[in-house]
């Protein structure tokens, strides 16, 4: 194979895995945009969703659709619960307290999953077709390709939902100004809880897809740390930025992995984070924060 077609193949596989990043990042952006909280526990919410799916399909032998539905439902309930019990009492507290509360929450979920399920790697039943897909003469592994399609579909569905449905518009209203949202009769606390629930649901889907592709351990959530780069590049509060950032980071990671080696692949996102924070802290599409004194 010529170097160029090799480059193309790496690029395509990278872009395809970028779709997964976009889906993971979506959960962060939803919560940040809706409630101004950066949720360090998002990765652990993914992991919980994946374990729910595993428990139902593998241990109880349920149909995969039922498992998926249950993962989404449990994710939603857990997200709304977290908002109600942990985040709402902390409203108005400094960033430090809120960030640490989500970090603590992540530890609780990770530790709890470790105690319940043990540290073993678990294999999820196949969810998406494995048959490789050919683009021209370039081969893309089936799991990667279909995960990309599913992820992008979920992200786009969320975008459409925000744009066209009544509840989506209410969420955007509450995000842009709480006071004005109250004034037009939107139940802002309920919207906040629903935003958290929705973010956790997308997280649960991401968790199932990701662990079906690789494998599942209580440390699945650590992936979310690498997704920081996607968020910072795209902008913490931009839904469109999630897609662009996800694809960009996926491609960059494939490139560094292919031409510089595996360990560079791991550290590259953090380098990107520092660089973007220095040059353009609000990312490509994020809203610039203006501080009033």
């Amino acid at each position, binding site marked *: 194979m010529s170097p160029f077609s090799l480059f193309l193949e790496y690029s395509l596989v990278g872009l395809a895995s970028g779709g997964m990043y976009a889906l993971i990042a979506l959960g962060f952006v939803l919560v940040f945009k809706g409630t101004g909280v*950066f949720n360090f526990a998002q990765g652990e919410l993914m992991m919980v969703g994946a374990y729910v799916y595993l428990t139902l399909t593998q241990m109880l032998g349920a149909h995969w659709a039922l498992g998926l539905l249950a993962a989404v439902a449990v994710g939603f309930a857990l997200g709304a619960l977290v908002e109600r019990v*942990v985040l709402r*009492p*902390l409203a108005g*507290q*400094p*960033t*430090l*307290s809120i*960030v*640490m*509360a989500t*970090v*603590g*929450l*992540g*530890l*609780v*979920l*990770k*530790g*709890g*999953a*470790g*105690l319940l399920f*043990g*540290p073993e790697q678990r294999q999820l039943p196949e969810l998406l077709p494995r048959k490789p897909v050919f683009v021209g003469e370039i081969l893309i592994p089936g799991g990667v390709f279909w995960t990309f399609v599913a992820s992008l579909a979920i992200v786009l569905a969320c975008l459409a939902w925000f744009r066209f449905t009544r509840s989506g518009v209410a969420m955007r209203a509450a995000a842009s100004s709480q006071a004005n949202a109250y004034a037009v009769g939107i139940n802002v606390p309920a919207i906040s809880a629903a935003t958290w629930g929705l973010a956790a649901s997308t997280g649960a889907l991401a968790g199932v897809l990701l662990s079906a592709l690789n494998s599942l351990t*209580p440390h699945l959530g650590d992936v979310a*740390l690498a997704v*920081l780069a996607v968020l*910072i590049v795209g902008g*913490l509060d931009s839904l469109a930025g999630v897609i662009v950032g996800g694809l960009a980071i996926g491609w960059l990671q494939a490139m560094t992995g292919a031409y510089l080696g595996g*360990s560079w692949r*791991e*550290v590259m996102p*953090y*380098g990107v*984070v*520092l660089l973007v*924070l*220095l040059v353009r*802290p609000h990312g490509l599409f994020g809203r610039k924060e203006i*501080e009033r*004194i």
Partner: protein
Amino acid sequence: MKTRPSLALLGPRCGVLPLSHADAGRRLDSPLRWGGLALLVAFLALLPFVADGYIVYMACLVAITIVSVVGLNILTGYTGLLSIGHAAFNGVGAFACAVAATRWELPFWLAIPFGGLMAAAAGVLVGLPSLRIKGLYLAIATLAAQFIFLFVVQHWTSVTGGDRGLQVPSPQVGGLRLDSDFRLYWLIVPVAFAMCVFAANLFRTRIGRAFIAVRERDYSAEVLGIDLLRTKLLSFALASFYAGIAGALMAYFFRIANPEQYGFGSSILQLTAVIVGGLGSILGSILGSLFMVALPEVLKGLATLLSGADAARSAVMLASARELVFGLLIVGFLLLEPFGLAEIVRRTRARLAVWPFRT
């Protein structure tokens, strides 16, 4: 950030009548406080003679943790700059000290400050963006710096020894090798004591007050004539210096510096200690460190009690249980006692002062 109510304690107290401004600002202003200090020093001096080896080992570990956590509290609790990468500065200090001690064969009294200074330099580097970004974004930047640090350490094998790390020789005083926990105690605990005293006094000076002003509202502080960049960088430098000293002590204490010790988990442990102990409180840092070092030991005891023979299984479960308990502590303290153990101590003291009446 909420203002701490502790300033009330600096006011006039029973049996103490300050007659000048200098008197009013004095910390050790009554026989009771002098007595308390003397008692503490006597306790620390006698401890290694009466306690068994395990206690001495734990005491050293607590003292090292205190140094590092006090540093993190200067940055996060007093200056309001959240850092999720503090352990990286421990690492810089440890490796700088290890290189100084092995390559250049510097004595420990030069190698330890060298570790601190290198960490401070790294801290200034990481702190540079802090004027432009703050809050959450700064936290993410420090997190990124943490992972980049680990990457550098693991790949710069010619200096750091990669994943295997560097062996560190025991410090030498005259002809005496400090090669046991008992002997190292006399190095570690006095250093920790001095650094706590320095930190406690720092916040009675212009610089320390500037840190607090920056925490409360950085733009307002600037209007008061505080140079923001300089103050923030100084806070980063100081916090990292503390972390570096702690790292260097750790290197001597464990006789090795390897990247495993300075990961994300250690950063989170130190942040937990700050929150559990009390943000913006030196006493809190001390209590928090004590708590966070003792807690895993208690859990370990419980785990062996519960699981019995299967050691490997119980070790794995222990790691999960630790995460669970740390997480619960963070969330619980933030929700129920945001100023931590230090606030509990303060309340108890205030209650005791007027006992048997109610406050």
